[in-house]
């Protein structure tokens, strides 16, 4: 083991560990989307367009989520308006 390996060990940032971390994030994200109905992205897009008529917001400032609780589903809409 040379001195560079020593520092690398300490940081634990191997290419494999970076790959694992990136995968865990993207896979969790995609699994979350999988359980949602297909119309959610379209709904979100149209909502943004409607709100944009009045307030200037970005796509990522609208958060739409559907939660299932027993027999009822809750459509949660979260819109961040820009600072005045």
């Amino acid at each position: 083991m040379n001195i560079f390996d020593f520092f690398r060990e300490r940081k634990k940032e191997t290419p494999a560990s970076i790959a694992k971390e990136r995968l865990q994030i993207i896979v969790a994200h995609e699994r979350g989307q999988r359980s949602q109905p297909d119309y959610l992205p379209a709904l979100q897009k149209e909502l943004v367009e409607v709100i944009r008529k009045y307030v200037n917001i970005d796509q990522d400032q609208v958060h739409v989520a559907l939660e299932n609780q027993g027999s009822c589903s809750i459509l949660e809409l979260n819109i961040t308006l820009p600072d005045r």
Partner: protein
Amino acid sequence: MAKILVVTSGKGGVGKTTTSAAIGTGLALRGHKTVIVDFDVGLRNLDLIMGCERRVVYDFVNVVNGEATLTQALIKDKRLENLYVLAASQTRDKDALTQEGVEKIINELRENFEYVVCDSPAGIEKGAHLAMYFADEAIVVTNPEVSSVRDSDRMLGLLASKSRRAEKGEEPIKEHLLLTRYNPERVTKGEMLGVEDVEEILAIRLLGVIPESQAVLKASNQGVPVILDDQSDAGQAYSDAVDRLLGKEVPHRFLDVQKKGLMQRLFGAR
């Protein structure tokens, strides 16, 4: 009752056809009457890997269209008594396979075989969908590499939602992870995802780990399923995987770096 196995991955080039040939041959070696079915319409390759490319007269689509009987289209393996291959069609017609057509053939194969191994094409299009739709068990072939792992996870999602079992609300498809092209040396150096990493991300039971091996290219060059090369690491790893598929408890091999002996070091033998 016959078991329908699908070998799938999402990503291309990870070893689906190599695996289908090896697992199918391994099942036949253990006395189970097995057929391996190529679902890759337009890009037929299982015949080459199995070494029967010159004996293909009729294919899957011919049988679906009633131009040949299943008996005429099934190619009997020259090496093993219990092993048959059904070749994919080389047609460019994307709609050559229909769900009804595939169902009819699968049902007919179910009556005559113990195992039907479906070699899925890459992607998540129609061919891949039809290959997995009727499956009882799935072998998800994955390389220790980001795009392959991500695609495998996507495939797992489809297996859980778009298969016949999922649609009918039956017991879900049993999923197995087969990690191929594994390089223990690079894993030790932290350059490659380890088997535990991939298991943790995909969270399905591990069927086997096939080491990156020169035996695989050698076997495909000769049209011999690599499992028949019982001296090779890949062949032995596939053999273990088949035993596990049949319910045996076999410890995993080839996960650690093989230490070279003095003689090997001196003469560079592999």
